[in-house]
């Protein structure tokens, strides 16, 4: 049995749309945190946050393209977990005060998105587990 899945078998078009929306909102949350705390953050912390924002925004954009490209009827049950984990990360970013915690949460979101794009079910499961820690 192949452990590596084709990327388009992980999510359907509608799944991709939901994830694109979530990642778009995640990028927005980090941007809000960065601007709300602009004067409290060091240039390096701002740079780290901005870089994570761009990465999350790129994932959102790629998910949108994927939604246009793929429309598979087979939706995977992993999606529920991916969505729940991403929503949890978004909520925690909105609540966190310490920039290191925000960077850690955003990095988990990036890892999760990368796993989704890799199409590797094991990587997705591992990233979901890490995101829910």
């Amino acid at each position, binding site marked *: 049995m192949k452990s590596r899945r084709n990327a388009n078998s992980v999510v359907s078009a509608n799944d991709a749309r939901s994830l694109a929306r979530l990642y*778009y909102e995640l990028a927005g949350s980090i941007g809000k945190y960065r*601007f709300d705390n602009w004067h409290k953050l060091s240039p390096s912390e701002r740079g780290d946050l901005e870089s994570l924002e*761009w990465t999350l*925004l790129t994932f*959102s954009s790629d998910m*949108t*393209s994927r*939604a*246009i490209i793929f429309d598979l009827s087979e939706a995977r049950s992993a999606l529920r977990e991916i969505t729940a984990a991403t929503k949890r990360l978004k909520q925690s970013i909105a609540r966190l005060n310490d920039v290191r915690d925000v960077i850690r949460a955003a990095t988990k979101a990036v890892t999760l998105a990368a796993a989704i794009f890799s199409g590797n079910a094991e990587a997705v499961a591992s990233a979901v587990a890490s995101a829910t820690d």
Partner: protein
Amino acid sequence: MRFAAAGILTLLVATVAACVRPSAVVRYAESASRTTEEFPQLAREIHASCLRVEAYKAQRKSEWYDEVTFRRACATRDTAVFGLIQANDVIAAYLKALASIAGNSGASLEPQTGRFVKLLAGKAGFNEPQADAAERLAEFVASKSVEGFKRRELSRVIAAHNADVQTVVSTLLRIVTQDFPSAFNVESTAQDNFYRTSLAEFGEREPLAAILVREQRDRRAMELMNKRRAITSYAAALRRIQSGHQKLYDERNHLDAPALAVELIRAAKELDSITRELDRAFR
């Protein structure tokens, strides 16, 4: 005498109306076809939006960048847009065929290969049944028999293709109303990130330059807003095409009904107005 004149007048009006009615189908189908021809500009904007996001990102990273890098990053979007344009072209060509048949004018259409359309529609988010619908419409438009169709066969053509028209237009509508706005949302956030961060970093040190940067940001935000409006307009056009064809299907055995003619002319006027809006948006 007065009654006789009134009778003649009524007869004359009825005759004129009867002549107008088939042309209402022509008018509707021609207007709808013209509006769908505006789609490629809108669809290409979705690819261009991806390129602009990549440019904002690269500029913030202060790395050297070139067009090839952006094109590579947006290749998936480019493929999707190409497929969408092909699927939309099938609807445009079908509507043109409908106008030719209704007008007894003989079709002069660019043939589209069904299999090619199916393949590309598949690359544009159409699932198997949706791509099959696009393929069937493309095959109909490409078939030589379109040239031979006469007005009396109009209702048969409408009946045979209504389901496929509804499927293809619904699929396009879903993509235009869901995925296109998402793409512009991403661009809007990228734009805000780029300008707000740059102004936060350098605005105080260079206040005059900051004014110019703000003006540029406002201009770009306005351009993006106009493109969002164009999406809304095109979605309205697709809905009008969908409901208009459904109405033709429902009334296929009474295509000369005055009420249908009134409705089709109204739809045609709305579609003409949308075409003008889209023209302005991309001028």
